[in-house]
């Protein structure tokens, strides 16, 4: 094994002394007298370094950071697929990058058209009736969906009664957190032994108090919820709404859709399914789509088109209002538009099929070594458990990164012990899938001791997380000299 990550003993920015080289034109000397008395800042303790030092600093740091452009990044639930470079070019075109969000409609017809077309794309992909692009990430989309649930209940006089939102125990943490943020009580339902929502438990959880059920399909176990039609009927018969967490859309493009399954509200994660770069943690975008009867509650403005011009549509007086101040993360929306336009109907569906094929390949190879708690065909990801091996998922993860491949998501979903949640995506070749599987298998042969001392090939060794939480050093000023 010859992998080695670049390693620097990189100083902190405030340990550089070269002095700033930055210049701007203009003369600000008149400003001092203009400041109201007592308002002038005396000390400004920022580091002062030359641009060449700053660039070298961040370039060295970048070399201590694994990324999709370096190889497989099978982080389950995150859809870390290749991010096309044409989208980088398009977002940096000045006719998009240098637009002010409060420019008048007549000057922004291009940007509005992009957003209108994206709304239309998302409707056709999801078989829903109306879309808002305003939410800024998946969790923000969930929260927007919850606000729509609230507004619908308020409008129909049911808000006082329907106070509960049901989520399965396999749900992503943002689902219960978003429901609680919207003021609802969260009721958890268990999964059955095949990983499906336990129908009997759902039946007894549903009542006249239920506001909505939030589910992810395929679930966070990478399994398609076979009973989804029955679930939709149960929920609707109980007078509640059905929410679809679209984080896992990459499994079903062109194959099925939340609209057909009977969902009322859906959010998309454009940074997952539509390949906008994850940026080291963000930005993302989390558009929300709804069925006709909920359209009037969507945030305003949405983007309309009257056959000639595109416009901001503020017409609904039942709207939940705004969840962000402008149109949403336009740069992310533009990238997603470019991705969908490039791949088209044929490419999107082919991508989903390949992603599912890749997952099943990995699943087949690795289930000989790790336990597969639910069996069956997988969708976009597979969740395996290392509890049969005596090794912890954490240690396996450290072995993998030490060998230059990113680890799966670990310890999620919470209902699988020692979970390894693997989502290869469609943008990995067969050799790299094999290399990943070989590394997982290698970790199981390495032995306890070897695993525990890893990583040794990276810029740092195993990190002490407990010390971080205890010391609470969150800025350089908190470092004891």
């Amino acid at each position: 094994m010859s992998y080695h990550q670049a390693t620097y003993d990189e100083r902190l920015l405030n340990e550089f002394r070269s002095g700033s080289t930055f210049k701007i034109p203009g003369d600000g000397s008149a400003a001092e007298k203009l400041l109201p008395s007592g308002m002038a800042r005396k000390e400004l303790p920022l580091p002062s370094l030359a641009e060449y030092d700053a660039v070298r600093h961040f370039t060295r740091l970048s070399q201590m950071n694994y990324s999709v452009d370096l190889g497989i990044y099978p982080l389950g639930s995150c859809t870390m697929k290749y991010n096309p470079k044409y989208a980088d070019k398009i977002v940096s075109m000045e006719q998009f990058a240098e637009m002010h969000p409060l420019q008048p409609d007549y000057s922004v017809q291009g940007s509005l058209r992009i957003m209108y077309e994206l709304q239309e794309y998302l409707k056709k992909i999801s078989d829903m009736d109306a879309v808002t692009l305003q939410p800024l990430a998946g969790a923000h989309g969930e929260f927007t969906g919850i606000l729509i649930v609230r507004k619908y209940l308020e409008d129909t006089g049911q808000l006082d009664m329907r106070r509960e939102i049901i989520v399965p125990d396999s749900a992503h943490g943002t689902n219960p957190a978003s429901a609680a943020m919207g003021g609802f009580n969260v009721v958890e339902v268990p999964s059955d032994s095949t990983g499906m929502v336990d129908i009997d438990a759902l039946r007894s959880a549903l009542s006249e108090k239920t506001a909505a059920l939030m589910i992810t399909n395929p679930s966070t176990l990478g399994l398609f919820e076979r009973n989804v039609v029955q679930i939709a009927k149960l929920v609707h018969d109980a007078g509640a709404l059905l929410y679809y967490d679209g984080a896992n859309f990459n499994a079903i493009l062109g194959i099925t859709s939340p609209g057909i399954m009977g969902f009322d509200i859906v959010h998309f994660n454009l940074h997952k399914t539509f390949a906008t770069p994850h940026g080291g943690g963000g930005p993302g975008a989390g558009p929300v789509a709804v069925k006709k009867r909920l359209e009037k509650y969507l945030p305003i403005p949405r983007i309309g088109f009257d056959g000639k011009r595109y416009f901001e549509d503020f017409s609904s007086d039942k709207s939940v209002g705004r969840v962000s101040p402008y149109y949403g993360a336009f740069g992310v929306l533009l990238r997603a538009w470019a991705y969908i336009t490039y791949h088209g109907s044929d490419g999107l569906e082919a991508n989903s099929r390949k992603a599912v094929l890749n997952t099943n390949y990995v699943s087949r190879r690795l289930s000989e070594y790790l336990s597969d708690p639910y069996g069956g065909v997988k969708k976009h990801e597979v969740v395996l458990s290392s509890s049969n091996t005596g090794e912890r998922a954490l240690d396996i993860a450290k072995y993998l990164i030490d060998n230059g491949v990113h680890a799966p998501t670990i310890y999620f979903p919470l209902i699988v012990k020692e979970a390894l949640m693997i989502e290869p995506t469609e943008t990995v070749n067969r050799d790299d899938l094999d290399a990943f599987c070989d590394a997982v298998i290698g970790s199981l042969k390495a032995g306890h001791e070897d695993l525990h001392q890893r990583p040794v090939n990276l810029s740092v060794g195993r990190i002490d997380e407990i010390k971080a939480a205890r010391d609470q050093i969150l800025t350089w000023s908190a470092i004891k000299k």
Partner: protein
Amino acid sequence: MDFIGIKSDEELFSDIPSSIRKKGIPISRGISEYEVMRLAEEIGSANTGYNYANFMGCGIYDRIIPSAVDSVIGRSEFITSYTPYQAEFSQGMLQSLFEYQSLISDLTGMDMTNSSIYDGATALGEAVRMAHRINEKTEILVPENLYRSKMDVIHSYSSGLNLKFISYSFEKKTGYIDLEDLASKISANTSAIICENPNSFGVIDPNVMKVQEIKGEALLITYVDPVSLGVVVPPGSYGADISVSEGQQLGIHREFGGPLLGLFSFRKEYLRKSPGRIIGLTSDSKGKRAFVMTIQTREQHIRREKATSNICTNQALMALASAVYLSIVGPEGIRKIANVTISQAKKLKDAVSSVRGYDAKFLSGTSFSDVLVRMPGDPADIQRALFEKGILGPIPSSSLFPNLEAFAKSGFFSVTEKTSDGNIRFLADSLGAIQ
């Protein structure tokens, strides 16, 4: 397929009932990269104004961005990575975000800063929720002139809580906080007071420094312009408990309003009540300095419905951009940028006020970037007439604070360090010519 033992990939979808199968997506088929780029260019050509003399600001500004910012954040090691769940593999992003937290804490004079919230408005929404978590009180005092869009976002953010928003007024002459009115509205139920500096009139407000004397037990939430902090006293020095900002000005392109950056800082005693991801310094098994996400027991993946926020994906790349920006600009640079901004605002005030019918001095306070101007006609008409001359602006006040009818015939012209004297003259001449 052979290996998995299937003949067709259809078999992998046998678990999806045929009644809910979709027959393809009814959109056009894929095209080549070359065609996508041409199409984007063609659609983009319907956008105009980006190369005009620009006077639009009010929250989103056209500032000088050193080329190195785009070059660093465009490095694929950063832009194509994700949340640093595997810390040992991701020290680059972790250290950068730790530096971001440090830079923003230094700039705002606050103890701690999280590693980002979506944007300034949602950061304000999170701040209101955090204040309520801290003291469980229910009244939030807000400036009467807070932009409607921000108010709408905090309303959304607090819809699950039973909060009451009470507005306080401003002095008619200066545009400053009316301290007497504010004091009269503070009560035992006040959870927090929101103060802006510069405020929504664009005015640098010395009265924010006096709020700490009258606030009693209420928390102080400040919404500040980060560039102004190059020369204006920071919120940490006048008693802010939570300070938030829109960080777009720190090296991020306007991009039609997104992605943006929410700066979120607070006093250290409130750490456990705070939202968002936080990076901490620690060491590795050999004692070497290392960074890791920490204090995660507040977050959704652990606390689920009891989390302090639902935020997961944040604005890490934008936070990186602002860290690169601040490291290149440095303390002298940010000072000069702020000073030039104030000087150009003054020049614009003088120039515009010299045009008949326009008054940019009816508020006596010092403007930072945004200059509020009374106009002889409908600001939207003036905007259109100026647009035809190659000028972007004004932003009508009615679109920002529609509740204040006295400002129906006013609007903002904004400046930055990019605004040249020549463009200020061009604006004044054009205003004269369109009468």
